[in-house]
């Protein structure tokens, strides 16, 4: 039923009393939700891609006391990392001696 017809009501069949009733006409519009957004800010933020391995940075140790110290020997420069290089670890053979300690296998043989 059209909205206008819904508004038209009669009272006691008296034409003079025909009026527009306060029905759905009085229904108010609802407010829309207007959000404040800041998506633009996130489009400015991209991750930083690493250009390669980070060089090792020697951070100086904090000074705890002002005392004369002997100069430290300079550390040997680290060799460049070779991706094709292999490495090996040597583990000396040890044997348990009678007194419960360990001794190199060679020295045991020699003794």
């Amino acid at each position, binding site marked *: 039923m*059209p*909205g*206008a*017809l819904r*508004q*038209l009501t*009669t009272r006691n069949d008296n*034409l003079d009393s*025909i009026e*527009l009733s306060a029905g*759905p*006409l009085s*229904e*108010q*519009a*609802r*407010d*829309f*939700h*207007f*959000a*404040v*957004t*800041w*998506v*633009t*800010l*996130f489009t*400015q*933020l*991209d*991750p*930083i*891609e*690493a250009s*390669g*391995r*980070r060089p090792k*940075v020697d*951070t100086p140790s904090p000074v705890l006391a002002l005392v004369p110290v002997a100069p430290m020997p300079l550390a040997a420069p680290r060799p460049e*990392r070779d*991706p*094709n*290089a*292999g*490495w*090996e*670890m*040597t*583990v*000396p*053979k040890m044997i348990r001696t009678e007194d419960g300690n360990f001794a*190199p*296998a*060679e020295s045991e043989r020699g003794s």
Partner: protein
Amino acid sequence: MTTPANVIEISVQPGVQAHIDAAMALRSSGHLEVALRALSNPTEYDSYLYTVRGEIEFALGRFHDAALSYFAVVQSEPDNADAHYNLALCLQRSDRWDASCQAFERVLRLDPGRDAARIGLGASLLYLNRLDNALSAFQHCSDACQGPAQFGKAVALQLLHRFGEAESAYEALLASDPDSQETLSNLIALHVETGDLDRVREYSQRLLKLSPQSPAALQGLATVALERQDHHAAARYCDRIVELAPDCLEAWHNLRVALDRILNAFSAPKLLEEVKS
């Protein structure tokens, strides 16, 4: 050379670098998933491997996994500002606003001149509703980052209900970038709040020209039409909104209200006359 009898020889091939090289090549060719698999089970800890892994995970949108990768990097390299920054972005995109603020603050302690970290910090603070702190973060950005900093400032001011200052900031942005849709959308919201319907209509029309399907623009125009009893226009805009966003209940309601008013305006007086005659 023979190995002495008392030496056990253990040889290990260097796997990590080979895995990184393979992953980088795969990433370059666009095979991100495969690249990630190449880095999935490292035989030893290598911060560069975890950095590359974080980058790939970020690109795949796996922000939580990327955060874990970058977290491993910052544990071993606490002075690595880039890793802290990337970790902050991952936390931000995982909606971990508070943790992202802490990570951005660490970046700024390591590198106070990094504007992007201030922008990120301000954006996260806005989500945490720490509006004064957010405003301060944006205000401390250098001139090199003026655009986003100005936008962040405007948003913070708007949320602080300092509407006049917010409008000035937005207007300055529009002067340099008249097509900024988010600026126009926020200005519509601002003037709806202040009740300035002329401005709502002006910015809505500007936004509608740039983006004919913009919900903010259509809702702005519908609001003005409803307030000014322009029922036909209100019905037209609401009809468009429900077409684009069928779940917008306000638009359905207001469409019915506008149609009722149109029908009433046209039919009721005529019917009343007919009945009376």
